[in-house]
């Protein structure tokens, strides 16, 4: 079945350099540095990436960082908690706008 997302395309991510090499090189170099061990561990960074992947709903990133989280030693419970963090922030971001709704409603109501 033809879809917009093809799982095999994930492995071709590097091919973006074919159309614009200098920017791709800078991006991938930066990307590698971001995920290196630093003040945060690689395992922690992978869990953050997994949560963000769900927030932005990127199927490539979900596949990649599910595998990566397991390969960094995380377990399913920790991974699901990371996704709940993304869900809480997304849900909270919607709900906090309710204050604006309340403000407006109060403004125009008797």
């Amino acid at each position, binding site marked *: 079945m033809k879809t917009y997302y093809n799982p095999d395309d994930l492995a071709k991510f590097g091919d973006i350099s074919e159309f614009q090499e200098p920017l791709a090189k800078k991006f991938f170099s930066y990307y590698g540095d971001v995920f290196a061990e630093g003040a945060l*561990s*690689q395992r922690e960074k992978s869990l953050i990436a997994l949560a963000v992947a769900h927030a932005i709903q990127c199927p490539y990133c979900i596949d990649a960082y599910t595998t990566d989280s397991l*390969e960094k*030693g995380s*377990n399913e*419970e920790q991974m699901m908690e990371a996704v709940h963090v993304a869900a809480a922030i997304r849900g909270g971001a919607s709900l906090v706008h309710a204050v604006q709704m309340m403000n407006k409603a109060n403004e125009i109501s008797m």
Partner: protein
Amino acid sequence: MERRGSEFADTTAQLRVLNNHRDRITALPKFASKLKESGLWPLRPTSIDILQMNVGYMCNQTCKHCHVDAGPDRTEIMTRETMNQCLDVIRGGGISTVDLTGGAPEMNPDFRWFVEQASPHVDRIIVRCNLTIINANPKYNDLPQFFARHKINVVSSLPYYNKRNTDRQRGDGVFDSSIKALLALNEVGYGKEGSGLELDLVYNPVGAFLPAPQKSLEADYKRELKRLFNVEFNSLFTITNMPIARYLEYLIASGNYEAYMEKLVNSYNPAAAAAVMCRNTLSVGWDGVLYDCDFNQMLELEVGGAAPSHIRDFDRAALTERAIIVNQHCYGCTAGAGSSCGGEVA
């Protein structure tokens, strides 16, 4: 696998899959060609320091990933005669470590006799203990004391620090029984600083992915096992699952085979290849036949060239000069930080 009528009970079927399964896999480079690129072909031993003896395929567990296809129904077992042939080699000198594996090595009726005979002649005896054997039968309950008496280095699989992941791979109840056994080992001093009794754990992935970095995962294990169960241990070894036997069956049945092999090949590390365990280890099968490693043993790939093929004919010079037999499964030992019975190698 034979009892279930699996096609992979025939080791040639496993090798056929590893080499010719689908067009995509055939296109993957041969492991030998990778070694050539790394200047390591033919792969030769650096020494023969470790004698790894598989004393029998019988086991009280039936783990889903087992490369030995071990279980309670396996009858292959090393005899005292073959053990004596191994002892002749050990007494001849040059072997620093005897590494006893299985199956559950403790189920061999001559296990304790062999340990008593071998221990005065080597620096270290490793027993690959599955932990649950200690609780499996009253006759095994004193294994911690026996191990301690002979200063055995106990190396035990615990694929994760929780019940869910451990039992999924090793069977229902294995995690709880393993914790009970670890506490019994701690009780006699294993894993305690200054005791001289070394207890190491082995992590291997519960699925079709590569292991986590050894050092960071060891810290997680130490923190969680201490916090949750008051269990202590010395080191964690992370091991990559080899695409053979039951794990190969799992990879194919779950549709993960191609992606896993590609991942192993793409993660090839020349530094890990230079440090693979077959370069300083000789594997002895239950019947005395010699192999380059326990994985080759399970694929029935005997040592090659002019090297003797049985422990009774042990010839250090000929074995040190042999070319190690490699095949596509060897990518499992050279991916990333590498993998050996002692964990990462690079």
